């Protein structure tokens, strides 16, 4: 297990991080957790100051996950007009840096939802980057275990079915430039690299959606960089401002060269 984590930390985005010791998460002291977060912050933000702010971003997560391989996360951003980006980090996951959103002019970044894997008892952190360059963090403690290594289905083949397929659901009234809420669903196993392959008796290599762009017309809604901590078949809730002409376009790639693009028409108000 430890060897595996070491190997992973060399190939994934959180390369500079030492692996969390096996089973550490449940018993770590507050000091150990704080030290870990300091280390993570440094690897992601360098020497930039990250200010604590319970109000800038509120994390909605179950205190104890019902299913460690699918933990729903809601992120509510207070001053959405000032938001430029959003980071989500799961401190004790083998690759803690789970997701980074960069918002474009068509975004309405008041609320983002996503589903993640949680491998251990851990703090999760959300960090907002404001347009004037400040970084504001908040945290929540989540109890879960095994979310990254838990076998997903019973076979990889099954998990790969329909890879790249997408759906989008809209809610709200797309009138007069009011924000529209959307749910994006992507078929993709998002293999974490810690799941055993049944045929080869080896670990299924990590294969995950690493970049995803959502645009409305020619305007960016958001750009997402993802990692193995995103649950299989990623589902992301977001909102956008339907000014000008659509459609909504989603372009995604994975770390093994997969590339998919889909267009969705926003239902018109007259329907």
């Amino acid at each position, binding site marked *: 297990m430890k060897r595996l984590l070491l190997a992973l930390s060399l190939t994934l985005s959180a390369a500079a991080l030492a692996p969390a010791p096996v089973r550490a998460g449940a018993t770590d002291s507050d000091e150990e957790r704080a030290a870990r977060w300091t280390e993570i912050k440094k690897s992601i933000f360098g020497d930039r100051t990250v200010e604590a702010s319970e109000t800038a971003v509120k994390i909605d997560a*179950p205190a104890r996950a019902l299913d460690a391989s699918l933990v729903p996360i809601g992120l509510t951003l207070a001053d959405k007009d000032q938001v430029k980006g959003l980071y989500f980090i799961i401190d004790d996951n083998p690759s803690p840096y789970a997701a980074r959103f960069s918002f474009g002019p068509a975004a309405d970044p008041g609320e983002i939802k996503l589903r993640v894997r949680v491998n251990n008892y851990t703090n999760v952190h959300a960090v907002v980057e404001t347009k004037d360059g400040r970084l504001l963090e908040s945290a929540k403690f989540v109890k879960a275990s095994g979310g990254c*290594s838990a076998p997903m289905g*019973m076979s990889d083949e099954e998990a790969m079915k329909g890879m790249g397929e997408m759906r989008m659901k809209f809610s709200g009234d797309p009138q007069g430039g009011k924000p529209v809420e959307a*749910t994006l669903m992507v078929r993709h196993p998002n293999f974490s690299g810690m799941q055993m392959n049944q*045929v080869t008796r080896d670990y299924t290599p990590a294969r995950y959606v690493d970049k995803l762009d959502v645009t409305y017309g020619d305007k960016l809604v958001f750009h997402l960089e993802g990692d193995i901590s995103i649950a299989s*078949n990623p589902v992301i809730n977001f909102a956008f401002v339907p000014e000008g002409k659509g459609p909504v376009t989603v372009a995604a790639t994975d770390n093994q060269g997969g590339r998919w693009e889909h267009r969705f028409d926003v239902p018109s108000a007259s329907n």
Partner: protein
Amino acid sequence: MTGARATRRQALFGGLCLCCLPTLGRAADAFSLDEVAPGVFVRRGPDAEATAENNDAIANIGFIVGRDGVLVTESGGSLADGHWLRAEIAKRTSKPIKYVLLTHVHPDHVFGAGAFQGDAPTFVGHAALRGALDARGDFYRQRLVEILGAERTGPVVYPTLEVKEPAEIDLGDRTIRLTAHGTAHTNCDLSMLDTGSGLLFPADLLFVGRIPSLDGSLLGWLREIERLKGMGAAAAVPGHGPVRVEFAPAIADLARYLTVLRDETRAAVAAGRPIEAAVRTVAQGEKDRWSLFETYHGRNVTQAYQELEWE
């Protein structure tokens, strides 16, 4: 224990619910076997999670004595649990143990198998069990080792007879009919019918009293329930619950839970209610009807939601 035994006897023949039986803290060595039909012995697994105290002996396990030998219906939840069953068999018969059924991939049903390797029986499993054990066996084993230690956990044992089409095992005076099911509770559920007693052994395709756990396909499980009904058995030995139940009302309870889960999850998806809200609202009317509801129901909704949101 005397009171509990009497209650169980009543339940055996009266079809009463056993979910209130005080079995949670019971030590493994206090378990006993009931002869639910001539030559058919079953141990009730308590409605509990695996703990260091219970050796993961939480499923209904047992054996059938035929003219030519013994068939183990379920091996147990750990090597220790399997050893217990092995010893109980030896107390009752000296006939050889010829078959051990591995009814599906879940740890509480397969980790007892190691205790029977010395008997060199045929290990019988669904054709998809090998793949499922490859994918999950080590993971389950590590989890169980954390709770019980390696010695009491035992090895992952693979099937030596893989069932795809309906098959039969001849024990001399009774025949065991095997059915490999489509993805339902898991992707490798194997049920059997003992022609000697007429008893159906649906394994975890039938939970009674204990909340079902969904780990395959909700829609598939509802389909396989219809198939089980078509087998015409009047009584069954569920994977969890009392050791013997009337089949029709028991399967109706399960079908009701799964149907409500399906319908209310579909409604949540259609209404755009997110998964975290759905786990709090879907099928809450079932809450008082099942033990361990709080532990497993939310996870079932999560599974159902993932399956149905792509419809």
